[in-house]
Protein backbone atom coordinates (compact mmCIF):
# COMPACT_ATOMS: atom_id res chain seq x y z
CA UNK A 1 0.00 0.00 0.00
CA UNK A 2 1.18 3.49 -0.86
CA UNK A 3 3.28 4.90 2.02
CA UNK A 4 1.50 8.22 1.90
CA UNK A 5 -1.94 6.60 2.22
CA UNK A 6 -0.68 4.47 5.10
CA UNK A 7 0.41 7.58 6.97
CA UNK A 8 -2.94 9.26 6.47
CA UNK A 9 -4.76 6.11 7.52
CA UNK A 10 -2.63 5.81 10.65
CA UNK A 11 -3.32 9.39 11.69
CA UNK A 12 -7.02 8.82 11.06
CA UNK A 13 -6.99 5.67 13.16
CA UNK A 14 -5.24 7.43 16.05
CA UNK A 15 -7.64 10.37 15.80
CA UNK A 16 -10.57 7.96 15.80
CA UNK A 17 -9.33 6.47 19.08
CA UNK A 18 -8.99 9.87 20.71
CA UNK A 19 -12.31 11.07 19.27
CA UNK A 20 -14.03 7.96 20.62
CA UNK A 21 -12.84 8.97 24.05
CA UNK A 22 -14.27 12.43 23.55
CA UNK A 23 -17.50 10.82 22.40
CA UNK A 24 -17.83 9.08 25.74
CA UNK A 25 -17.51 12.40 27.56
CA UNK A 26 -19.61 14.53 25.24
CA UNK A 27 -21.87 12.06 23.49
CA UNK A 28 -22.59 9.53 26.20
CA UNK A 29 -22.40 11.68 29.32
CA UNK A 30 -23.37 15.01 27.81
CA UNK A 31 -20.40 16.93 29.20
CA UNK A 32 -18.70 19.44 26.98
CA UNK A 33 -14.94 19.18 26.74
CA UNK A 34 -12.93 21.60 24.67
CA UNK A 35 -9.62 20.48 26.12
CA UNK A 36 -9.42 16.88 25.01
CA UNK A 37 -6.20 17.53 23.07
CA UNK A 38 -4.51 18.18 26.40
CA UNK A 39 -5.09 14.58 27.46
CA UNK A 40 -3.94 13.33 24.08
CA UNK A 41 -0.78 15.29 24.82
CA UNK A 42 -0.46 13.99 28.36
CA UNK A 43 -0.62 10.44 27.00
CA UNK A 44 1.94 11.21 24.31
CA UNK A 45 4.38 12.92 26.67
CA UNK A 46 4.02 10.18 29.29
CA UNK A 47 4.72 7.53 26.68
CA UNK A 48 7.61 9.54 25.27
CA UNK A 49 9.20 10.07 28.68
CA UNK A 50 8.77 6.45 29.74
CA UNK A 51 10.35 5.34 26.47
CA UNK A 52 13.23 7.80 26.29
CA UNK A 53 14.05 8.45 29.94
CA UNK A 54 13.03 5.16 31.56
CA UNK A 55 13.76 2.91 28.62
CA UNK A 56 10.46 1.07 28.95
CA UNK A 57 9.00 -0.66 25.93
CA UNK A 58 5.70 0.50 24.51
CA UNK A 59 3.89 -2.53 25.86
CA UNK A 60 5.22 -2.27 29.39
CA UNK A 61 4.58 1.46 29.52
CA UNK A 62 1.10 1.38 28.00
CA UNK A 63 -0.93 0.52 31.12
CA UNK A 64 0.98 3.23 32.97
CA UNK A 65 0.33 5.76 30.24
CA UNK A 66 -3.39 5.09 30.24
CA UNK A 67 -3.57 5.04 34.02
CA UNK A 68 -1.65 8.30 34.43
CA UNK A 69 -3.69 10.10 31.78
CA UNK A 70 -6.94 8.87 33.29
CA UNK A 71 -5.78 9.82 36.77
CA UNK A 72 -5.01 13.36 35.64
CA UNK A 73 -8.38 13.34 33.89
CA UNK A 74 -9.97 12.43 37.20
CA UNK A 75 -8.04 15.12 39.07
CA UNK A 76 -8.92 17.83 36.59
CA UNK A 77 -12.44 16.49 36.26
CA UNK A 78 -13.29 16.97 39.91
CA UNK A 79 -13.20 20.77 39.99
CA UNK A 80 -14.42 21.05 36.41
CA UNK A 81 -17.59 19.13 37.03
CA UNK A 82 -18.63 21.16 40.01
CA UNK A 83 -19.41 23.96 37.62
CA UNK A 84 -22.27 24.51 35.25
CA UNK A 85 -22.27 23.62 31.55
CA UNK A 86 -20.98 26.90 30.19
CA UNK A 87 -18.27 27.12 32.78
CA UNK A 88 -17.17 23.61 31.84
CA UNK A 89 -16.50 24.66 28.26
CA UNK A 90 -14.30 27.49 29.42
CA UNK A 91 -12.57 25.44 32.10
CA UNK A 92 -11.62 22.79 29.59
CA UNK A 93 -10.28 25.43 27.22
CA UNK A 94 -8.23 26.69 30.12
CA UNK A 95 -6.94 23.20 30.85
CA UNK A 96 -5.76 22.95 27.26
CA UNK A 97 -3.84 26.23 27.50
CA UNK A 98 -2.33 25.49 30.88
CA UNK A 99 -1.20 21.97 29.95
CA UNK A 100 0.31 23.29 26.73
CA UNK A 101 2.11 26.01 28.69
CA UNK A 102 3.48 23.44 31.11
CA UNK A 103 4.85 21.27 28.30
CA UNK A 104 6.34 24.32 26.62
CA UNK A 105 8.01 25.87 29.61
CA UNK A 106 9.50 23.10 31.68
CA UNK A 107 12.79 21.43 30.81
CA UNK A 108 11.51 18.07 32.03
CA UNK A 109 9.22 17.99 29.02
CA UNK A 110 11.88 19.22 26.68
CA UNK A 111 10.57 22.75 26.68
CA UNK A 112 9.88 24.29 23.33
CA UNK A 113 11.97 21.63 21.60
CA UNK A 114 9.77 18.79 22.77
CA UNK A 115 10.90 15.20 22.98
CA UNK A 116 12.58 13.40 20.11
CA UNK A 117 14.11 10.02 19.47
CA UNK A 118 11.08 8.06 20.56
CA UNK A 119 11.67 4.46 19.45
CA UNK A 120 9.29 2.47 17.31
CA UNK A 121 6.97 -0.08 18.82
CA UNK A 122 8.47 -3.56 18.81
CA UNK A 123 6.42 -6.71 18.64
CA UNK A 124 8.82 -9.36 19.95
CA UNK A 125 11.80 -8.66 17.69
CA UNK A 126 9.92 -7.03 14.86
CA UNK A 127 9.97 -3.25 14.76
CA UNK A 128 6.58 -2.10 13.56
CA UNK A 129 6.60 0.41 10.78
CA UNK A 130 4.31 1.51 7.99
CA UNK A 131 1.49 -0.92 7.35
CA UNK A 132 2.31 -3.05 10.37
CA UNK A 133 2.00 -0.08 12.67
CA UNK A 134 -1.28 0.78 11.00
CA UNK A 135 -2.56 -2.67 11.87
CA UNK A 136 -1.51 -2.10 15.45
CA UNK A 137 -3.52 1.11 15.54
CA UNK A 138 -6.50 -0.59 13.96
CA UNK A 139 -6.25 -3.30 16.58
CA UNK A 140 -6.44 -0.74 19.38
CA UNK A 141 -9.24 1.07 17.57
CA UNK A 142 -11.21 -2.15 17.49
CA UNK A 143 -10.54 -2.58 21.20
CA UNK A 144 -11.80 0.92 21.92
CA UNK A 145 -14.91 0.29 19.83
CA UNK A 146 -15.63 -2.87 21.77
CA UNK A 147 -15.28 -1.01 25.05
CA UNK A 148 -17.66 1.67 23.81
CA UNK A 149 -20.12 -0.95 22.60
CA UNK A 150 -19.99 -2.70 25.94
CA UNK A 151 -20.47 0.63 27.70
CA UNK A 152 -23.73 1.27 25.84
CA UNK A 153 -25.02 -2.08 27.01
CA UNK A 154 -23.86 -1.72 30.59
CA UNK A 155 -25.67 -0.02 33.46
CA UNK A 156 -22.81 2.49 33.58
CA UNK A 157 -23.65 3.60 30.05
CA UNK A 158 -27.37 3.74 30.71
CA UNK A 159 -26.68 5.87 33.77
CA UNK A 160 -24.60 8.26 31.64
CA UNK A 161 -27.35 8.51 29.01
CA UNK A 162 -30.00 9.19 31.62
CA UNK A 163 -27.79 11.81 33.26
CA UNK A 164 -27.15 13.40 29.89
CA UNK A 165 -30.87 13.66 29.19
CA UNK A 166 -32.15 14.94 32.53
CA UNK A 167 -29.74 15.25 35.40
CA UNK A 168 -32.35 15.88 38.11
CA UNK A 169 -34.49 12.95 37.03
CA UNK A 170 -31.41 10.73 36.86
CA UNK A 171 -30.55 11.65 40.45
CA UNK A 172 -34.10 10.76 41.47
CA UNK A 173 -33.54 7.23 40.22
CA UNK A 174 -30.29 6.78 42.10
CA UNK A 175 -27.75 8.01 39.55
CA UNK A 176 -25.06 10.17 41.10
CA UNK A 177 -24.24 12.85 38.51
CA UNK A 178 -20.77 13.50 39.89
CA UNK A 179 -19.83 9.84 39.96
CA UNK A 180 -20.88 9.13 36.40
CA UNK A 181 -19.52 12.36 34.97
CA UNK A 182 -16.16 11.50 36.49
CA UNK A 183 -16.44 7.94 35.20
CA UNK A 184 -17.02 9.22 31.67
CA UNK A 185 -14.11 11.63 32.07
CA UNK A 186 -11.80 8.85 33.25
CA UNK A 187 -12.76 6.53 30.39
CA UNK A 188 -12.61 9.29 27.79
CA UNK A 189 -9.25 10.64 28.89
CA UNK A 190 -7.87 7.12 29.21
CA UNK A 191 -8.69 6.52 25.55
CA UNK A 192 -7.04 9.81 24.67
CA UNK A 193 -3.97 8.62 26.55
CA UNK A 194 -3.90 5.44 24.49
CA UNK A 195 -4.06 7.51 21.32
CA UNK A 196 -1.28 9.69 22.64
CA UNK A 197 1.01 6.72 23.22
CA UNK A 198 0.43 5.49 19.67
CA UNK A 199 1.03 9.01 18.34
CA UNK A 200 4.31 9.39 20.20
CA UNK A 201 5.70 6.13 18.85
CA UNK A 202 4.44 6.95 15.37
CA UNK A 203 5.73 10.49 14.99
CA UNK A 204 8.79 9.68 17.16
CA UNK A 205 9.04 13.38 17.92
CA UNK A 206 6.46 15.43 19.83
CA UNK A 207 6.20 18.99 21.02
CA UNK A 208 3.61 20.99 22.90
CA UNK A 209 2.18 22.64 19.82
CA UNK A 210 0.96 19.25 18.57
CA UNK A 211 -1.65 19.28 21.33
CA UNK A 212 -2.99 22.80 21.29
CA UNK A 213 -6.54 24.11 21.37
CA UNK A 214 -7.23 23.88 17.60
CA UNK A 215 -6.79 20.12 17.90
CA UNK A 216 -9.43 20.02 20.65
CA UNK A 217 -11.73 21.84 18.27
CA UNK A 218 -10.89 19.38 15.50
CA UNK A 219 -11.69 16.43 17.72
CA UNK A 220 -15.02 17.95 18.69
CA UNK A 221 -15.72 18.54 15.00
CA UNK A 222 -15.02 14.90 14.26
CA UNK A 223 -17.67 13.64 16.62
CA UNK A 224 -20.11 16.38 15.65
CA UNK A 225 -19.76 15.65 11.94
CA UNK A 226 -19.90 11.90 12.45
CA UNK A 227 -22.75 12.03 14.94
CA UNK A 228 -22.42 12.74 18.64
CA UNK A 229 -23.25 9.85 20.91
CA UNK A 230 -23.34 7.30 18.12
CA UNK A 231 -21.05 4.31 18.09
CA UNK A 232 -19.52 4.81 14.64
CA UNK A 233 -19.74 8.59 14.58
CA UNK A 234 -16.20 9.22 15.87
CA UNK A 235 -14.71 6.93 13.23
CA UNK A 236 -16.73 8.43 10.41
CA UNK A 237 -15.88 11.90 11.64
CA UNK A 238 -12.18 11.11 11.93
CA UNK A 239 -12.18 9.78 8.39
CA UNK A 240 -13.98 12.80 6.97
CA UNK A 241 -11.95 15.39 8.86
CA UNK A 242 -8.77 13.43 8.07
CA UNK A 243 -9.48 13.17 4.37
CA UNK A 244 -10.87 16.67 3.81
CA UNK A 245 -7.53 18.50 3.90
CA UNK A 246 -6.19 15.97 1.40
CA UNK A 247 -9.21 16.25 -0.86
CA UNK A 248 -8.97 20.02 -0.84
CA UNK A 249 -5.20 20.00 -1.20
CA UNK A 250 -5.39 21.24 -4.80
CA UNK A 251 -6.95 24.42 -3.48
CA UNK A 252 -3.92 24.76 -1.24
CA UNK A 253 -4.50 28.30 -0.18
CA UNK A 254 -8.23 27.96 0.36
CA UNK A 255 -8.09 24.64 2.14
CA UNK A 256 -8.57 25.83 5.69
CA UNK A 257 -11.28 28.26 4.70
CA UNK A 258 -13.21 25.49 2.96
CA UNK A 259 -12.75 23.31 5.98
CA UNK A 260 -14.00 25.88 8.47
CA UNK A 261 -16.87 26.99 6.23
CA UNK A 262 -17.89 23.39 5.75
CA UNK A 263 -17.84 22.94 9.52
CA UNK A 264 -19.97 26.03 9.97
CA UNK A 265 -22.53 24.87 7.41
CA UNK A 266 -22.52 21.38 8.86
CA UNK A 267 -23.13 22.49 12.41
CA UNK A 268 -25.68 25.09 11.36
CA UNK A 269 -27.82 22.76 9.29
CA UNK A 270 -27.04 19.26 10.56
CA UNK A 271 -25.99 19.52 14.19
CA UNK A 272 -26.84 15.90 14.73
CA UNK A 273 -24.05 14.82 12.44
CA UNK A 274 -24.21 12.44 9.51
CA UNK A 275 -25.21 9.48 11.63
CA UNK A 276 -27.49 11.57 13.82
CA UNK A 277 -31.14 10.78 14.30
CA UNK A 278 -32.80 13.09 11.84
CA UNK A 279 -29.93 13.72 9.51
CA UNK A 280 -30.35 14.26 5.82
CA UNK A 281 -28.12 11.27 5.20
CA UNK A 282 -30.35 8.97 7.24
CA UNK A 283 -33.50 10.25 5.60
CA UNK A 284 -32.02 9.88 2.15
CA UNK A 285 -30.94 6.36 3.00
CA UNK A 286 -34.40 5.50 4.31
CA UNK A 287 -36.03 6.89 1.18
CA UNK A 288 -33.82 4.82 -1.13
CA UNK A 289 -34.56 1.74 0.96
CA UNK A 290 -38.29 2.32 0.65
CA UNK A 291 -38.01 2.93 -3.08
CA UNK A 292 -36.07 -0.31 -3.39
CA UNK A 293 -38.78 -2.25 -1.58
CA UNK A 294 -41.76 -1.18 -3.73
Amino acid at each position, binding site marked *: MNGYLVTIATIIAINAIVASGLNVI*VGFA*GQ*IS*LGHAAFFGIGAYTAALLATKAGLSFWVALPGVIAITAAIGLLLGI*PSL*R*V*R*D*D*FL*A*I*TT*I*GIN*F*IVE*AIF*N*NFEFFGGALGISGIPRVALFTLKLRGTEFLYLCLFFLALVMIINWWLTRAWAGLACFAMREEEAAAASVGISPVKFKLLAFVIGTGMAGLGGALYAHFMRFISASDFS*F*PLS*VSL*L*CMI*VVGGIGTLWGPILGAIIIGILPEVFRPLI*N*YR*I*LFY*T*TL*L*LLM*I*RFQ*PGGILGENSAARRLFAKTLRRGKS
Partner: protein
Amino acid sequence: MQLFIEQLLNGIATGSIYSLITLGLALVYGIMRILHIAHAAIFTIGAYMGLLFFNLTGSLLAAIAGSMVVCALLGVLIERFIYFPLLKHPPFVPLIASIAILLSVEELARLIAGPQILTFPALLPFPALHVVGVTINSTITAVYCITALVLVLLWAITTKTELGLAMRAASQDRAIADAMGINSHLIISITFVIGSAIAAIAGILVGIYFNQVYPTMGAIPAYKALAIIVVGGMGSAPGAVVASMLLGMAETLLIGYANIPLPRDAVAFIAMIGVLMWRSEGIMGSR
Protein backbone atom coordinates in the same frame (compact mmCIF):
# COMPACT_ATOMS: atom_id res chain seq x y z
CA MET B 1 8.62 53.22 42.59
CA GLN B 2 8.70 54.94 39.25
CA LEU B 3 8.67 51.56 37.52
CA PHE B 4 5.79 50.43 39.67
CA ILE B 5 3.63 53.40 38.75
CA GLU B 6 4.52 53.08 35.09
CA GLN B 7 3.58 49.43 35.06
CA LEU B 8 0.45 50.13 37.06
CA LEU B 9 -0.67 52.70 34.51
CA ASN B 10 0.22 50.29 31.71
CA GLY B 11 -1.78 47.66 33.47
CA ILE B 12 -4.80 49.93 33.70
CA ALA B 13 -4.51 50.60 29.99
CA THR B 14 -4.31 46.89 29.26
CA GLY B 15 -7.23 46.31 31.58
CA SER B 16 -9.22 48.98 29.79
CA ILE B 17 -8.65 47.31 26.47
CA TYR B 18 -9.60 43.97 27.93
CA SER B 19 -12.83 45.45 29.23
CA LEU B 20 -13.74 46.84 25.84
CA ILE B 21 -13.14 43.43 24.30
CA THR B 22 -14.92 41.53 27.02
CA LEU B 23 -17.96 43.79 27.44
CA GLY B 24 -19.55 42.60 24.21
CA LEU B 25 -18.98 38.99 25.21
CA ALA B 26 -20.54 39.53 28.64
CA LEU B 27 -23.55 41.33 27.19
CA VAL B 28 -24.18 38.57 24.66
CA TYR B 29 -23.77 35.82 27.21
CA GLY B 30 -26.06 37.62 29.60
CA ILE B 31 -28.86 37.77 27.09
CA MET B 32 -28.43 34.57 25.12
CA ARG B 33 -26.34 32.26 27.29
CA ILE B 34 -24.11 31.64 24.28
CA LEU B 35 -20.31 31.75 24.44
CA HIS B 36 -19.83 34.15 21.55
CA ILE B 37 -16.23 33.31 20.65
CA ALA B 38 -16.88 34.79 17.22
CA HIS B 39 -16.82 38.11 19.06
CA ALA B 40 -13.06 38.00 18.52
CA ALA B 41 -13.74 37.75 14.79
CA ILE B 42 -15.73 40.97 14.96
CA PHE B 43 -12.88 42.53 16.93
CA THR B 44 -10.43 41.52 14.19
CA ILE B 45 -12.67 42.81 11.43
CA GLY B 46 -13.08 46.02 13.41
CA ALA B 47 -9.32 46.50 13.34
CA TYR B 48 -9.04 45.78 9.62
CA MET B 49 -12.03 47.93 8.69
CA GLY B 50 -10.70 50.75 10.82
CA LEU B 51 -7.36 50.52 9.05
CA LEU B 52 -9.06 50.37 5.65
CA PHE B 53 -11.27 53.40 6.23
CA PHE B 54 -8.36 55.29 7.76
CA ASN B 55 -6.20 54.62 4.71
CA LEU B 56 -9.07 55.63 2.42
CA THR B 57 -10.15 58.79 4.19
CA GLY B 58 -7.28 59.81 6.40
CA SER B 59 -9.78 60.57 9.11
CA LEU B 60 -9.66 58.54 12.29
CA LEU B 61 -13.19 59.53 13.20
CA ALA B 62 -14.52 58.25 9.89
CA ALA B 63 -12.56 55.06 10.39
CA ILE B 64 -14.08 54.45 13.82
CA ALA B 65 -17.58 55.27 12.63
CA GLY B 66 -17.34 53.16 9.50
CA SER B 67 -15.86 50.24 11.36
CA MET B 68 -18.56 50.38 14.03
CA VAL B 69 -21.26 50.25 11.39
CA VAL B 70 -19.73 47.28 9.59
CA CYS B 71 -19.21 45.36 12.80
CA ALA B 72 -22.67 46.09 14.13
CA LEU B 73 -24.12 44.74 10.90
CA LEU B 74 -21.95 41.66 11.07
CA GLY B 75 -22.92 41.01 14.65
CA VAL B 76 -26.60 41.09 13.83
CA LEU B 77 -26.12 38.81 10.83
CA ILE B 78 -24.34 36.26 12.97
CA GLU B 79 -27.04 36.45 15.60
CA ARG B 80 -29.95 36.15 13.21
CA PHE B 81 -28.61 33.52 10.83
CA ILE B 82 -26.44 31.37 13.02
CA TYR B 83 -27.15 31.69 16.73
CA PHE B 84 -30.89 32.21 16.91
CA PRO B 85 -31.79 29.15 14.80
CA LEU B 86 -29.46 27.01 16.89
CA LEU B 87 -30.89 27.95 20.27
CA LYS B 88 -32.91 24.77 20.59
CA HIS B 89 -29.82 22.59 20.37
CA PRO B 90 -27.42 21.71 23.18
CA PRO B 91 -25.07 24.60 24.01
CA PHE B 92 -21.97 23.20 22.34
CA VAL B 93 -23.67 23.50 18.94
CA PRO B 94 -23.70 27.31 18.77
CA LEU B 95 -20.30 27.20 20.46
CA ILE B 96 -18.79 25.17 17.64
CA ALA B 97 -20.49 27.43 15.09
CA SER B 98 -18.93 30.41 16.86
CA ILE B 99 -15.47 28.87 16.75
CA ALA B 100 -15.96 28.02 13.08
CA ILE B 101 -16.83 31.66 12.40
CA LEU B 102 -13.70 32.88 14.18
CA LEU B 103 -11.48 30.47 12.26
CA SER B 104 -13.15 31.36 8.95
CA VAL B 105 -12.69 35.07 9.54
CA GLU B 106 -9.02 34.54 10.40
CA GLU B 107 -8.58 32.69 7.12
CA LEU B 108 -10.48 35.29 5.11
CA ALA B 109 -8.34 38.01 6.62
CA ARG B 110 -5.23 36.05 5.72
CA LEU B 111 -6.40 35.50 2.15
CA ILE B 112 -7.67 39.00 1.50
CA ALA B 113 -5.28 41.21 3.43
CA GLY B 114 -2.32 38.90 3.60
CA PRO B 115 -0.70 37.13 6.56
CA GLN B 116 1.75 39.91 7.30
CA ILE B 117 1.42 42.30 10.19
CA LEU B 118 0.05 45.63 9.01
CA THR B 119 0.76 48.86 10.80
CA PHE B 120 -1.83 51.35 11.99
CA PRO B 121 0.02 54.63 12.16
CA ALA B 122 -2.86 56.78 13.26
CA LEU B 123 -2.37 59.60 15.65
CA LEU B 124 -4.83 59.68 18.46
CA PRO B 125 -5.55 63.34 19.11
CA PHE B 126 -5.10 63.08 22.86
CA PRO B 127 -2.53 64.85 24.95
CA ALA B 128 0.25 63.15 26.82
CA LEU B 129 -0.21 63.39 30.56
CA HIS B 130 2.26 63.89 33.33
CA VAL B 131 1.16 62.19 36.52
CA VAL B 132 3.17 61.74 39.70
CA GLY B 133 6.41 62.22 37.84
CA VAL B 134 5.50 59.67 35.20
CA THR B 135 4.67 60.46 31.60
CA ILE B 136 1.85 58.63 29.89
CA ASN B 137 1.91 58.89 26.15
CA SER B 138 -1.05 60.02 24.12
CA THR B 139 -2.05 56.52 23.07
CA ILE B 140 -2.54 55.42 26.64
CA THR B 141 -4.44 58.58 27.46
CA ALA B 142 -6.64 57.85 24.47
CA VAL B 143 -7.29 54.36 25.76
CA TYR B 144 -8.30 55.70 29.17
CA CYS B 145 -10.60 58.35 27.74
CA ILE B 146 -12.27 56.22 25.12
CA THR B 147 -12.86 53.37 27.53
CA ALA B 148 -14.29 55.73 30.11
CA LEU B 149 -16.56 57.24 27.48
CA VAL B 150 -17.83 53.85 26.34
CA LEU B 151 -18.43 52.66 29.90
CA VAL B 152 -20.30 55.82 30.84
CA LEU B 153 -22.46 55.63 27.72
CA LEU B 154 -23.21 51.97 28.31
CA TRP B 155 -24.05 52.60 31.93
CA ALA B 156 -26.33 55.44 30.95
CA ILE B 157 -28.13 53.35 28.37
CA THR B 158 -28.65 50.35 30.59
CA THR B 159 -29.76 52.24 33.67
CA LYS B 160 -31.44 55.37 32.38
CA THR B 161 -33.32 54.31 29.29
CA GLU B 162 -36.25 52.04 28.58
CA LEU B 163 -34.08 50.12 26.20
CA GLY B 164 -31.68 49.43 29.01
CA LEU B 165 -34.49 48.25 31.22
CA ALA B 166 -35.72 45.93 28.51
CA MET B 167 -32.20 44.60 28.06
CA ARG B 168 -31.83 43.87 31.74
CA ALA B 169 -35.26 42.23 31.88
CA ALA B 170 -34.56 40.04 28.86
CA SER B 171 -31.26 38.88 30.25
CA GLN B 172 -32.86 37.88 33.56
CA ASP B 173 -35.68 35.86 32.08
CA ARG B 174 -36.47 35.93 28.42
CA ALA B 175 -39.75 34.07 28.61
CA ILE B 176 -41.19 36.51 31.09
CA ALA B 177 -39.83 39.48 29.20
CA ASP B 178 -41.62 38.15 26.13
CA ALA B 179 -44.81 37.71 28.11
CA MET B 180 -44.58 41.32 29.20
CA GLY B 181 -44.59 42.50 25.64
CA ILE B 182 -40.88 43.07 25.25
CA ASN B 183 -39.78 42.03 21.80
CA SER B 184 -36.92 39.98 23.13
CA HIS B 185 -35.53 39.08 19.72
CA LEU B 186 -35.21 42.76 18.91
CA ILE B 187 -33.49 43.32 22.24
CA ILE B 188 -31.08 40.50 21.50
CA SER B 189 -30.21 42.01 18.13
CA ILE B 190 -29.69 45.43 19.70
CA THR B 191 -27.41 43.85 22.30
CA PHE B 192 -25.35 42.39 19.47
CA VAL B 193 -25.23 45.77 17.75
CA ILE B 194 -23.92 47.43 20.90
CA GLY B 195 -21.48 44.65 21.74
CA SER B 196 -20.13 44.48 18.19
CA ALA B 197 -19.73 48.24 17.92
CA ILE B 198 -17.71 48.23 21.12
CA ALA B 199 -15.62 45.36 19.71
CA ALA B 200 -14.90 47.51 16.65
CA ILE B 201 -13.62 50.30 18.88
CA ALA B 202 -11.53 47.78 20.81
CA GLY B 203 -10.06 46.42 17.58
CA ILE B 204 -9.05 49.85 16.37
CA LEU B 205 -7.58 50.83 19.73
CA VAL B 206 -5.56 47.61 19.92
CA GLY B 207 -4.40 48.09 16.34
CA ILE B 208 -3.14 51.58 17.11
CA TYR B 209 -1.81 50.81 20.60
CA PHE B 210 0.37 47.92 19.45
CA ASN B 211 0.65 49.24 15.90
CA GLN B 212 -0.18 45.77 14.64
CA VAL B 213 -3.09 44.42 12.65
CA TYR B 214 -2.90 40.78 11.63
CA PRO B 215 -5.29 37.89 10.93
CA THR B 216 -4.92 35.98 14.20
CA MET B 217 -5.01 39.03 16.47
CA GLY B 218 -8.34 37.88 17.84
CA ALA B 219 -7.27 34.46 19.02
CA ILE B 220 -5.70 35.26 22.38
CA PRO B 221 -8.28 37.93 23.27
CA ALA B 222 -11.00 35.37 22.50
CA TYR B 223 -9.84 32.90 25.08
CA LYS B 224 -8.74 35.46 27.61
CA ALA B 225 -12.12 37.13 27.39
CA LEU B 226 -13.73 33.80 28.26
CA ALA B 227 -11.58 33.46 31.34
CA ILE B 228 -12.38 37.06 32.25
CA ILE B 229 -16.13 36.66 32.11
CA VAL B 230 -15.88 33.58 34.32
CA VAL B 231 -13.86 35.52 36.86
CA GLY B 232 -16.14 38.52 36.68
CA GLY B 233 -19.34 36.53 36.81
CA MET B 234 -20.91 35.17 33.67
CA GLY B 235 -23.18 37.66 32.01
CA SER B 236 -22.33 40.48 34.38
CA ALA B 237 -21.04 43.47 32.43
CA PRO B 238 -19.77 45.31 35.52
CA GLY B 239 -18.09 42.08 36.57
CA ALA B 240 -16.40 41.84 33.20
CA VAL B 241 -15.01 45.35 33.58
CA VAL B 242 -13.77 44.75 37.11
CA ALA B 243 -12.19 41.42 36.18
CA SER B 244 -10.61 42.96 33.08
CA MET B 245 -9.02 45.72 35.09
CA LEU B 246 -7.75 43.32 37.71
CA LEU B 247 -6.33 41.00 35.08
CA GLY B 248 -4.70 43.82 33.13
CA MET B 249 -2.99 45.09 36.25
CA ALA B 250 -2.09 41.61 37.48
CA GLU B 251 -0.57 40.55 34.17
CA THR B 252 1.47 43.71 33.74
CA LEU B 253 2.66 43.91 37.33
CA LEU B 254 3.47 40.21 37.65
CA ILE B 255 5.39 40.06 34.41
CA GLY B 256 6.67 43.58 34.05
CA TYR B 257 7.37 44.46 37.65
CA ALA B 258 7.72 41.29 39.69
CA ASN B 259 9.25 39.39 36.80
CA ILE B 260 7.51 36.15 37.55
CA PRO B 261 8.42 33.61 34.85
CA LEU B 262 4.91 32.70 33.86
CA PRO B 263 3.72 32.82 30.29
CA ARG B 264 1.69 35.99 30.26
CA ASP B 265 -1.41 34.43 28.81
CA ALA B 266 -1.58 31.67 31.40
CA VAL B 267 -2.28 34.21 34.14
CA ALA B 268 -5.85 34.65 32.97
CA PHE B 269 -6.63 30.96 33.12
CA ILE B 270 -4.88 30.37 36.39
CA ALA B 271 -6.85 33.26 37.86
CA MET B 272 -9.99 31.74 36.43
CA ILE B 273 -9.39 28.35 38.00
CA GLY B 274 -8.55 30.04 41.29
CA VAL B 275 -11.77 32.03 41.25
CA LEU B 276 -13.81 28.97 40.33
CA MET B 277 -12.41 27.14 43.32
CA TRP B 278 -13.29 29.96 45.64
CA ARG B 279 -16.59 31.24 44.37
CA SER B 280 -18.11 29.56 41.37
CA GLU B 281 -20.30 32.46 40.33
CA GLY B 282 -17.33 34.75 39.90
CA ILE B 283 -16.77 38.12 41.46
CA MET B 284 -20.04 39.70 40.57
CA GLY B 285 -22.16 36.82 39.37
CA SER B 286 -25.45 35.92 40.99
CA ARG B 287 -26.26 32.54 42.45
